[in-house]
């Protein structure tokens, strides 16, 4: 190492120790992006991160940012690892970060308590802590458009509408970690009230790619329906195993992390008929997606591997994440009258968000998702999901939006939120009038 390099490194190290403010352009909105383009789940993380970045870049190119302020997206790689995620948070929070979308449940849980202290909202889009839907208890956390619990109630509604639930047996195959176990309390509660039987099939993280034992039991017990809370390599394995034991795939429903192109491309034709829940539109036939293609992808400013990857399930979901955040910035700007907003303004923006049908059309996303409307007490938006089916080559949307069973789920969410806060006397809530 020569002297020049050495001194450069030394300066960098010194700058890091003392924490010199790194120059930011005037009038910019800083959006950190915690990505996982490496690690065991990179297959799902890459399209999500692409969609997220491309939408903001498209806004910069097409509209010159939001309200005249450019959006600066800075990626920080977490590899889906909680420790690295916390490190990324610490590294970016002082640069004026407006909101975090942590993506992994572990990182979300670590960031939720920090959000109120550092005054930067956490937007865990449909994942993380379901209880965070209760705005009074979790003023700084948002889970639009819906939670795992509400999603499960939508899926059960679909089953109920297609042959009824009463007296049926529903198999639940799930990744045996916090994420997969989260819907269990609701499932048990609903099984009592709706009169169906539940069979549980946990899949350990280390057995993701070897589920023959679980599917042997499925074959023995023959549940009428199967629901899956899977992730990563678990999904294609499960669909393959289901096909192998000739389980009717049109009675096998995955949640929204178990229904991407990455999952089913590996299965191909034999996965035909498999169902999955989703809340973000599929494909490129939306004006906003077309704008991304013209303004970002065709100019070579996107990181997508090929033009065809734009519009796949996880790409569009990453894009939708950015859409909600961009809309929150827009609302915050209107409310405060400022161009450059703070994390606290962003929180108000997220809380007062209202993406209705008309607004979706304005954004070039007509029919892309259910309307999202937040209030002080509702940080979930009670959005609906639709079901999509794998036709052997691609996903097709097969149902309209299915409203969740809010009347049952909401009290449970409130109970869970109360429980989370109960042993934290210093927890800051908010009052909604």
């Amino acid at each position: 190492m020569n002297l020049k390099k050495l001194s450069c490194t030394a300066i960098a190290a010194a700058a890091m120790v003392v924490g010199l403010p790194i120059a930011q352009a005037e009038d910019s909105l800083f959006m950190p992006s915690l990505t996982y383009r490496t690690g065991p789940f990179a297959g799902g993380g890459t399209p999500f991160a692409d969609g997220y970045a491309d939408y903001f870049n498209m806004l910069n190119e097409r509209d010159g940012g939001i309200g005249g302020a450019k959006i600066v997206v800075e990626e920080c790689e977490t590899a889906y690892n909680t420790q690295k995620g916390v490190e990324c948070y610490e590294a970016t929070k002082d640069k004026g970060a407006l909101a975090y979308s942590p993506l992994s449940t572990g990182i979300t849980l670590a960031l939720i308590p920090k959000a109120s202290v550092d005054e930067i909202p956490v937007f865990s889009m449909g994942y993380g802590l379901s209880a965070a839907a209760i705005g009074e208890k979790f003023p700084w956390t948002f889970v639009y458009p819906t939670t795992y619990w509400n999603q499960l109630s939508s899926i059960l509604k679909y089953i109920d509408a297609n042959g009824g639930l009463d007296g049926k047996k529903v198999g639940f195959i799930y990744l045996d970690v916090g994420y997969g176990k989260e819907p269990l309390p609701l499932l048990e509660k609903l099984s009592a009230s709706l009169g169906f039987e539940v069979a549980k099939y946990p899949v350990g993280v280390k057995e993701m790619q070897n589920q023959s034992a679980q599917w042997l039991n499925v074959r023995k017990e023959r549940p009428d329906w199967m629901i899956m809370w899977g992730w990563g390599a678990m999904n294609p394995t499960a669909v393959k195993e289901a096909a192998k034991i000739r389980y009717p795939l049109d009675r096998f429903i995955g949640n929204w992390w178990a229904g991407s192109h990455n999952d089913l491309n590996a299965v191909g034709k034999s996965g035909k008929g498999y169902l999955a829940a989703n809340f973000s539109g599929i494909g490129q036939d939306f004006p906003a997606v077309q704008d991304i293609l013209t303004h970002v992808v065709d100019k070579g400013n996107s990181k997508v591997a090929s033009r065809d990857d734009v519009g796949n399930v996880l790409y569009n979901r990453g894009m939708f994440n950015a859409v909600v955040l961009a809309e929150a910035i827009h609302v915050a700007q209107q409310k405060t009258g400022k161009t450059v907003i703070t994390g606290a303004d962003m929180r108000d923006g997220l809380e007062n968000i209202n993406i209705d049908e008309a607004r979706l059309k304005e954004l070039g996303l007509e029919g892309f998702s259910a309307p999202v409307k937040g209030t002080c007490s509702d940080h979930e938006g009670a959005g609906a999901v639709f079901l999509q089916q794998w036709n052997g080559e691609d996903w097709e949307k097969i149902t309209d939006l299915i409203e969740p069973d809010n009347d049952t789920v909401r009290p449970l969410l409130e109970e869970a939120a109360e429980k989370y806060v109960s042993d934290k006397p210093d927890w800051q809530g908010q009052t909604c009038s």
Partner: protein
Amino acid sequence: MFYREAGQFKTTYADDQALLPIAQDRVGLIIVLAIAFLVLPIVASDFFLSSIMIPFLVFALAAIGLNILMGYAGQLSLGTGAFMGVGAYSCYKLTTIFPDLNILIVLLLSGFFSAGVGVVFGLPSLRIKGLYLAITTLAAQFFLEWCFIRVGWLYNYNDSGAIEVPQRELFGLAVTGPHATPETRYLIILTIVAVMTLVAANVLRGRIGRSWMMIRDMDIAAELMGVRPLYAKLSAFAFSSYYCGVAGALMVFMWLGSAEVEAFDINHSFLVLFMVIIGGMGSLTGCFMGAAFIWVLPVILRAIPPAFELDILAATMEHISSIIIGALIIFFLIVEPHGLARLWRVGKEKLRTWPFPYAT
């Protein structure tokens, strides 16, 4: 030139047996501690304290724990991650059952649970050695991970299945939870690590430490000379697991703020194992060097492109840093198979004889 012990005469046995017999070593350590305790909390940024120094100290403590077992007592273990988990979960249970108990006491108590578990899983070491023992500790790793997932009581039946750190105060100052400043957390960890390192250094050069080293070097000879393998091996497991347990509790309470079972998986066992091997088996300084090498260096490498506003994708940098670290590990192990601590020692030896080295 400066590092020379000429003229330092020792006139008492106490002087001769001091922890650091050479004056320059003592001064150096005092300077390092002064920087760590007085300078860093004032000048360093929050990021440096919370994302570099705190993890570094936590992993250094875990590495000391493993090094006691592997480097000094010669028992191979792959269960470090799980032992850290036992510490973290017992700390969580203790502080939720006794919320008014001083958090420092809770942190130090939680190590005892880990020590107990360590002794149970150390029992096979009386019959088997080496790689075979590694397999039984691997069983501990899997069994304990299984417990952390399945036994709901351990995480108070939280819906998230994770342990969430409540706020605890010390002298009216928040030391855990989101309100605790990085400076407070750093100083507490630093104090605990400094004191525990001192304790380890003294235990290791005393009767107990010597009996561990005798067992490591030749267990039959040690037995013939009066060392009881049962006590020696199990005490090594207990001592080592205690350190790992406290490190795990500190990791969750002072650094991450919440933890799922993934925080204690087999990868962390390997991570700490690499720190011990790179740092140097049988050396406490090596533990700090290993932790710095494995944990701090990648963080610094990742921070270089943004500092210079280079347009490198974060994920690419992640790959590059893996490549660099991997290459450096191979390089250092070829140059000095006994780890960084050995390099450090060789360097000091050379300095002592400089500029007139005699043949070695």
